[in-house]
């Protein structure tokens, strides 16, 4: 008897409880990366329920497509995509999720890179001898707090496609959020202002937008080609350059090969600075503001002359 009751419950759950309130009460937003989830949450407030596919500490380029991702996208009203190839895996997830609301071309889907001034778009023909290059340009624009007006505007439009009756509320929340970002951005800019023009080395080219926003110069990378382990020759040349140009900081993120970066920094009398490559990637970086507070503070510390 008990098993029949259990079976009946499973079937009812699978088909949808008849008396359940409509799911439209809250818009279910799934973002490919956590930073975009936080922005959707900032705009959507209590009208949205958010989830993310790549874990905060994960390099989004490396995501392994899992059925659990499909289960999340299966329930999504809106799918928020970073674009520029960093989350190209999302198509495999969408195909396995059986959710017509978020298939390519559907209204419940937004690629936030559209309209962004993309950096490092190759001007020459690229191929894989250059490593794991992104032919459409650098995809890590979510690390630029100065682009929040554009990104959140696209989010308001996308959310309003799903729930047009709430457009005004989304826009109001967006304006409130932008005011907070603007205030915080002033503070971050003040903290890094003394280091304007300072040269840094990055392990991987994921800091282009962040550094450009604060006029810090990315002069070289530890990996000579994206995704390819650096050759000894490249590292030796890098150390020489760092000594010659008195470059004092090597920026790494949690998924980079820290030992190689530390060896380079030690040889060049520089410091390795670990920054969060996204919100939640490191302890104390859980919110959008925490992320930039942390990164700005640690970068300023690393650039301060000893």
């Amino acid at each position: 008897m008990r098993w029949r009751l259990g079976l009946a419950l499973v079937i009812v759950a699978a088909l949808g409880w008849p008396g359940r309130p409509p799911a439209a009460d809250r818009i279910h937003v799934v973002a490919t990366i956590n930073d975009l989830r936080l922005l959707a949450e900032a705009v959507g407030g209590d009208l949205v329920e958010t989830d993310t596919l790549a874990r905060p500490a994960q390099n989004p380029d490396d995501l392994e497509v899992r059925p659990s991702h499909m289960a999340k996208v299966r329930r999504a009203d809106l799918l928020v995509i970073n674009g520029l190839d960093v989350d190209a895996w999302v198509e495999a997830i969408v195909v396995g999720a059986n959710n017509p609301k978020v298939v390519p071309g559907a209204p419940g889907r937004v690629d936030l890179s559209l309209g962004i001034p993309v950096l490092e778009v190759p001007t020459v023909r690229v191929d894989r001898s250059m490593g794991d290059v992104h032919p459409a340009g650098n995809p890590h624009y979510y690390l630029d707090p100065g682009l929040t007006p554009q990104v959140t505007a696209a989010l308001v439009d996308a959310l309003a496609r799903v729930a047009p009756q709430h457009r005004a509320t989304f826009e109001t929340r967006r304006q409130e959020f932008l005011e907070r970002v603007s205030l915080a951005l002033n503070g971050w800019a003040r903290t890094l202002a003394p280091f304007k023009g300072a040269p840094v080395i990055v392990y991987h080219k994921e800091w282009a937008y962040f550094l450009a926003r604060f006029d810090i110069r990315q002069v070289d990378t530890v990996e000579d080609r994206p995704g390819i382990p650096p050759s000894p020759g490249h590292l030796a040349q890098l150390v020489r350059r760092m000594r010659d140009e008195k470059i004092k900081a090597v920026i790494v993120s949690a998924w980079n090969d820290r030992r190689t970066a530390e060896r380079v920094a030690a040889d060049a009398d520089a410091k390795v600075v670990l920054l969060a490559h996204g919100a939640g990637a490191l302890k104390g970086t859980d919110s959008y503001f925490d992320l930039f507070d942390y990164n700005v503070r640690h970068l300023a510390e690393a650039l301060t002359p000893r």
Partner: protein
Amino acid sequence: MRAIVAPGLIVVLLLSSAPAFAEDVEALRREVEQLRKQLQSVTERLLAIEARPAPSPAAPAGGTAPASPPMTAPPMATAPAATTAALPMAPAPSLGDYARPHQPFALAERRGPGQLLFDIGLSADLVATLTQRNVEKALGGSFPGEENRFFPRSIELGLFGQIDPYARGVVRIEVGEEAEDGDREFKIDVPEAHLTLLTLPWSTQIKMGRMLNRFGMLNQIHEDDLPQTDRPNVLTRFLGPEGLIENGAELTWVAPLPFYLEALVGIFNGDNETAFGRGSLRAPLATTRVRTFFEIDDANAVQIGVSAATGETTEKHRSTLVGADIKYKLVPEGWRHPLLTIAGEGLVSNRKVDVSGDLDGDGTRLRGGWYAYAEVQPWLRWAFGARYDWTQYPVNPGSEWAVEPYITFKPSEFLRFRLGYKHTERTHRVTGPDDRGSARIVDEILFQASFILGAHPVDAF
């Protein structure tokens, strides 16, 4: 009757999806109005951005702090200063670009005007085997007819993308060396040419055409993506060296549950001669699969699946296969790759055969087999593993077991080398054509080199 009912069901489902395609005039009008407002809003923002002063050029090299730091933040919503000036946007491909000889995928990756509307990818899988002379004569190796050779097992051109807002299409054309009756030749095959209807109601999808059936865990995996160089013995014995590739349709349903549960039913011709072979929708091959997945915690995940297929053989006898599979992965927090993968799959086959003087009774063959493997990947580029196989033969008496340790090296996501050793023992001798040799005990060294040209491969669990 069944042959009529099954395709009928598919047609009914297709027709019932019509409302999803139909556009209500009023809804369209609202949408146009909304788009107009959005366009106006975007135009206003664009004008506002253009009205801002140009960003300052990149600061000169140095490293010391400037004397008087500015006290205001850089303007929001403008391109960051340093790199936009140095890196102008890529121009759209010109007519000359198209006319010039180039690798096809290069155009597929271009963005902006002139881009191709679908993706192109190419993968190549090259294999070398070394084994005993008697095994070569008996054609008793893992790749019969290719013993002691370096050969292109599969060179595959894949074309895929959205057909329209409602459907996605995939076509894969494969060229590979095949050995038959002592002759080797390049054969062109189309293992996949199918479309998937993405916008059907009730969380369903229909995939139709020619496809690698979603039967078991490894059947739908392409040769270059297999966890070991060769397919497990039980799969090649019961489904053939290429696996189950069929023409027909699959309907999938993803349950609205907090965890992933996918159910699938399929109707196919039954062209696979190793397991079925009837090749007619009058006596179709019916398949089903249920797959679920659990994340135990952030690091541990397991996938479980059960599959079944039933059809008729060329002799018009019933043949039924039932399988179960399980896969576990451990990906420690912050790792870019799994540290440990353990997986296994078992198959049971029940079929009737025409035999003269059948010693087993009524010609029924209830046979089975299984495999399991474990792989450890302590570093991003290196993996070590071993597979164990045990299988009976589907029709003939006897069984075989094998063990295959291997090592994999991946210089990048797009290139992989694998070296393995496989030891196989059979209860019966395998005798080659004209009784030139036999193979009961087989020792093989297997080498594999695979590469991909084009877009990122998707890593799947």
